[in-house]
């Protein structure tokens, strides 16, 4: 009847399906499957015999261990409250007031993102510790003041430093979405400032507010660096896992505590995800951004508040740098670079530092490629919808997986040369075990540890790119990969650079994900900070921290410079008036 064209099968769609399945396998093996041996371990003893719930019962019956769980919750709740409160006021000042020197406050507020939580803790020691500047009244020049740093107080201060910028980022972007017209309408109806705040401002940022609550909760509940350094005898889950695994080689109990750490995080994550599902923007595309009016009282209060926060951030950073330059604190306060030799304790000199830099570069390169490509496949195509939804879910999960848990599960998964199939006498070779003991596993752990934030930002950018570009290409017979290279990547370049720099900076400062994983022949700097601090060589730890912060800042500067050039080049596409 009709000529049936014999080209119903499309090579491109086949290729696309293969790629989606391939990425699905990768994210499964990197995110979900490694958690299985961890679960199994928590139900086994250290000789791998299945013992049911015994570990969990032992845990509950051990008062010092259960105390850690309560401590972790206390830390998380207190930190979350203060971080979101400070973050909100700071964000409000940046977006909704005529704060003087706004640009300055904006730039430096995120400064503490480049300081590893470990280093923050070390900085706190030099300010509030036994020999600290404030405790000793600036080397005895004024009366001292002791805040009892080691323990709950120190952890809370350190965690707030760590979590506050995270809350700030979320809340600034939430508050930036505003509609001047709503406020004008409210004003014309004679609404009081409080009423406007309660009926317009708060409802508009409720999703951002909830999100920042959960992020701060997860971060502070699971953080290892700060409690390790200033925790003293105040034990939390994260330090318990470390002690069980590194101190007592008790992997089974380490795995059990990991479950106690993992479950609240996953719960928080799921509640937040469920909550965010209902998000529908109240602000339309046609909205007019809010323009704050001058208000001398509010602006001055905000200025004082923001200055105080910045002084603290800069104070902590300066004390780290200062401590690294002082010969023997507090006895010989002459300046020297001897702490930068790293010769005494770990004895590895600069090796850990360069290992970390290379690890961060690899993480930035491979992580960015992997995360962007994953987001692209999930976001831009139609085939295999269910699998793409699973990839999406898996990709958002790592934010709820604490670094230590990820590290522990990676050891248990990647050190197995083969898997035995349950109930069958059959072994399958584990190709990923080849990564074990190499730089590769550190890079992979970092890529996954920070995957969610990068994935969400890639997805957001890709969503903004017209989905019809792919359809136009199809109609013009251009295969999708050409459009990916020629259109999608150039349009996403600012985000790609941002993801790369985020990966680099976070890999530089992270400790939790890699502390169980780093091979003896590849020492890394954040772990050597922990070791130097353990050995009492706090000055060298401060010096290493200084190097990390300066490197991160340097990379960030390169990023700012590059992205400015990129946006100058692309402004001709986006902003016609400038050309």
């Amino acid at each position, binding site marked *: 009847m009709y*000529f*049936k*064209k014999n080209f119903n099968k499309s090579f491109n769609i086949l290729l696309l399906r293969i790629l989606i399945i391939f990425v699905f396998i990768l994210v499964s093996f990197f995110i979900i499957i490694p958690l299985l041996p961890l679960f199994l371990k928590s139900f086994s003893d250290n000789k791998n015999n299945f013992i049911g719930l015994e570990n969990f019962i032992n845990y509950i019956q051990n008062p010092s261990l259960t105390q850690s769980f309560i401590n972790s919750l206390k830390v998380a709740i207190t930190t979350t409250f203060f971080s979101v409160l400070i973050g909100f006021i700071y964000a409000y000042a940046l977006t909704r007031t005529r704060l003087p020197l706004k640009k300055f406050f904006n730039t430096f507020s995120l400064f503490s993102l480049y300081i590893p939580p470990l280093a923050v803790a070390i900085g706190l020691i030099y300010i509030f510790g036994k020999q600290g500047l404030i405790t000793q009244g600036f080397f005895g020049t004024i009366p001292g003041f002791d805040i009892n740093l080691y323990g709950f107080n120190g952890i809370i201060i350190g965690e707030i430093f760590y979590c506050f910028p995270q809350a700030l980022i979320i809340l600034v972007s939430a508050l930036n979405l505003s509609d001047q017209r709503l406020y004008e309408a409210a004003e014309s109806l004679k609404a009081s400032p409080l009423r406007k705040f309660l009926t317009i401002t708060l409802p508009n940022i409720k999703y951002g507010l909830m999100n920042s609550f959960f992020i701060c909760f997860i971060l502070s509940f699971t953080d290892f660096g700060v409690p390790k350094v200033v925790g003293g005898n105040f034990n939390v889950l994260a330090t318990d896992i470390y002690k069980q695994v590194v101190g007592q080689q008790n992997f089974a109990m380490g795995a059990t505590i990991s479950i106690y750490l993992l479950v609240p995080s996953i719960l928080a994550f799921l509640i937040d995800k469920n909550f965010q599902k209902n998000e529908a923007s109240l602000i339309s595309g046609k909205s007019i951004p809010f323009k704050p009016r001058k208000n001398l009282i509010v602006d001055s209060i905000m200025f004082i508040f923001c200055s105080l926060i910045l002084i603290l951030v800069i104070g902590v950073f300066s004390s780290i740098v200062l401590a690294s330059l002082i010969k023997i604190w507090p006895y010989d306060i002459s300046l020297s670079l001897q702490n930068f030799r790293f010769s005494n304790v770990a004895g590895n000199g600069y090796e850990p530092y360069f290992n970390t830099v290379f690890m961060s570069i690899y993480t930035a390169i491979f992580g960015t490629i992997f995360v962007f490509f994953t987001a692209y496949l999930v976001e831009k195509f139609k085939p295999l919808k269910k699998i793409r939804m699973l990839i999406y879910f898996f990709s958002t999960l790592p934010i709820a997986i604490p670094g230590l848990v990820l590290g522990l599960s990676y050891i248990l998964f990647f050190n197995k040369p083969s898997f035995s199939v349950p109930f069958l006498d059959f072994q399958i070779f584990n190709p990923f075990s080849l990564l074990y003991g190499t730089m590769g596993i550190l890079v992979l752990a970092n890529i996954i540890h920070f995957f969610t934030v990068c994935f969400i930002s890639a997805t957001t950018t890709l969503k903004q790119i017209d989905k*019809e570009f792919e*359809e136009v290409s199809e109609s013009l017979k251009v295969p999708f990969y*050409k459009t990916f290279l020629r259109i999608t990547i150039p349009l996403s370049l600012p985000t790609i650079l941002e993801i790369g720099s985020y990966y680099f900076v976070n890999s530089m400062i992270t400790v939790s994900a890699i502390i169980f994983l780093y091979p003896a022949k590849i020492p890394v700097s954040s772990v050597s900070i922990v070791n130097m601090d353990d050995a009492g060589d706090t000055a060298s730890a401060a010096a290493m921290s200084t190097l990390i912060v300066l490197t991160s800042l340097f990379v960030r500067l390169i990023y700012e410079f590059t992205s400015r050039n990129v946006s100058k080049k692309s402004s001709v596409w986006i902003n016609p008036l400038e050309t």
Partner: protein
Amino acid sequence: MIKKEGSFKYLEIKNISKNFGQTFVLKNIHLDVFKGEFLCLLGPSGCGKTTLLRIISGLERQTNGDIVQDGLLISNSPTEKRDFGIVFQSYALFPNLNAKQNIAYGLENKKINKKEIEKRTNNLLRLVGLEKYSDQFPSQLSGGQQQRVALARAMALSPGLLLLDEPLSALDAQVRSKLRNEIKLIQKKLNLTTIMVTHDQTEALSMADRVVVMERGHIAQIGTPFELYKNPITPFVADFIGKMNLLKGKYDKKNCVFYYLNNRFLISQNTEYSFLENCLLGIRPEDIEIIKFRKNIEKEENILRVKIKEITYLGTIFRLIVVLESKLEENIFVDVISNQMISNNLKIGDFIDIKLKKEKIKLFESNL
């Protein structure tokens, strides 16, 4: 069904259905498109017109049915293997490529030498009148110019079929009417079979050779613009193409009389009106005559006494909204040319008599 001698069915849409889960978007669509024809799919939003266009392009897959293009069964062919060009409502121009690069995008992927690409791109730029703008990025072009780049890009591979998805709706009124003519001219010059989706009846009527009126997933009527206007077969088409008053009443088939409330209207003899007694009377506002006020109206046929509720000035005509005293909520639209309006000095609140011209009255099956 052959439209005219020499033209043949270029595209045959056979029994196409589409459902998303339980909801039907398209139901058993049959449609033939002739070579060189300009066809419009017209309907309100949600009627399935865009889905039909996307199924023709392969961007969406039908649940049932077949598509034959130029004698080839393409029902399951992937988009990239189908022979068409498409212009989206958003144009979807690549923002990082200039006008020329956008147009050449599809050509560059073919194994054509650079000179040939250059030549063809320049020809296309000339065709749409944008020679001077070849180096401009989309953001530097006006809406109308962007639209033309999108059109040129869609035609670059010399497709046998051009698909336009609401191509003009993002433009302002003046540019829109200018581009209507241009697109039509290019289409006729190249004798390019074209299917355009639109919700704008003026656009459809002024551009299309034939219009397909769609309603809730099925075709309500197909015809030339004039046929649709003159002989709408459903009240939906009648009121969508132009304006039509629809009065619900009873039809006495034997005597050719329609009863509306207490009024009776004589209807022209028409064997097509075979339906039951409950039905709709349809009459266009321009087919109602105003008779200022008479004492003995009973003697005349098809007269209603009404009160003027609203008067809207629409340029050459006034549109009156009038109501019966016995049914105030039912608006009847009456168009009056300006001169008559002025000479009769009509005001809101006036009582007037209107006459429904017998030969212009249509009856429709009432589906209520």
